[in-house]
């Protein structure tokens, strides 16, 4: 299966999803006006991956910040991962946040409370 690569812009994150080793990376900032359109390729790729998933799926979310319109789409991505996790793949989500960034930590905790996939909070040092 083909790898999904979306290069980052000032308003949208870098997305890399490799269905051949089950690794997903979302990194940068996510503040597009139309986030449904932006996240659709990833949601579609995860949907396709679910039919032929790897035993392990690792997800790294390294977002600097995101707008509320993205927050719904990120939840959609996590809900797809939830389905994959209840199928034949073990999913782990790593949520990265910079030390001192309470807003990002809280945002991670919000998702952690909503979705039932192993969800790790990873603190990183400030740049």
């Amino acid at each position: 299966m083909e790898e999904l690569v979306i290069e980052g812009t000032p308003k949208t994150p870098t997305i890399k999803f490799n269905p051949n080793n089950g690794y997903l990376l979302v990194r940068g900032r996510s503040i597009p006006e139309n986030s449904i359109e932006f996240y659709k390729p990833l949601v579609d790729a995860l949907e396709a991956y679910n039919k032929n998933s790897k035993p392990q799926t690792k997800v790294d979310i390294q977002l600097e910040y995101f707008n509320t319109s993205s927050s719904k789409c990120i939840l959609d991505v996590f809900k797809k991962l939830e389905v994959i996790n209840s199928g034949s793949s073990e999913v782990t989500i790593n949520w990265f946040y910079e030390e001192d960034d309470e807003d990002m930590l809280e945002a991670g905790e919000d998702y952690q409370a909503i979705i039932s996939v192993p969800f790790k909070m990873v603190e990183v040092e400030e740049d």
Partner: protein
Amino acid sequence: MDNIHDFYNMMEDGNIMLSFKGEVTSDLLTSILQIMESKMETLDEPPKIKKKVYNILVECLQNLYHHIDEDDALTAANEKTALFMIRKNDDGEYSIMTGNYIANENIHILKARLDKINSMDKEELKDYYKEVLNNGEMSAKGGGGLGMIDIARKSGKKLDYDFAKIDDKFSFFSLIVNIAQ
């Protein structure tokens, strides 16, 4: 041309860092965000404050953008424009101010939402956010009713708002978001 000097002094005294009046487009949002980012970089703000202000700024501006984009009832050019200002007080506190026209029939829903948000404490806002995130419907433009909740949560202050009646059809909606240090 004395007025221009008055106008300058008014903005200077009000500690206005940036203001804009006009139609809010996607390109404009990008530019304002870039300007504010480099301004805050110059001011050497701690990353925590920088991120918080930036985040709230994005929500405020996108609220204006979606509102204006979505409301077909607003036809006159004047009524499509909005006002945006950001201020840094002498004590270092940031405030974001926005103003835009709103159809009178839409006031009730917005006012009820703002009052509900203002009645909540930190924990209640967190729960309300999760509830809307998980259950709320998303509009075609991507607004999901989360913006104001997020602004209130991140700012740590009550939302200061006003509706001033213009005529039978429209009112002017003003919002001031003070950001707790």
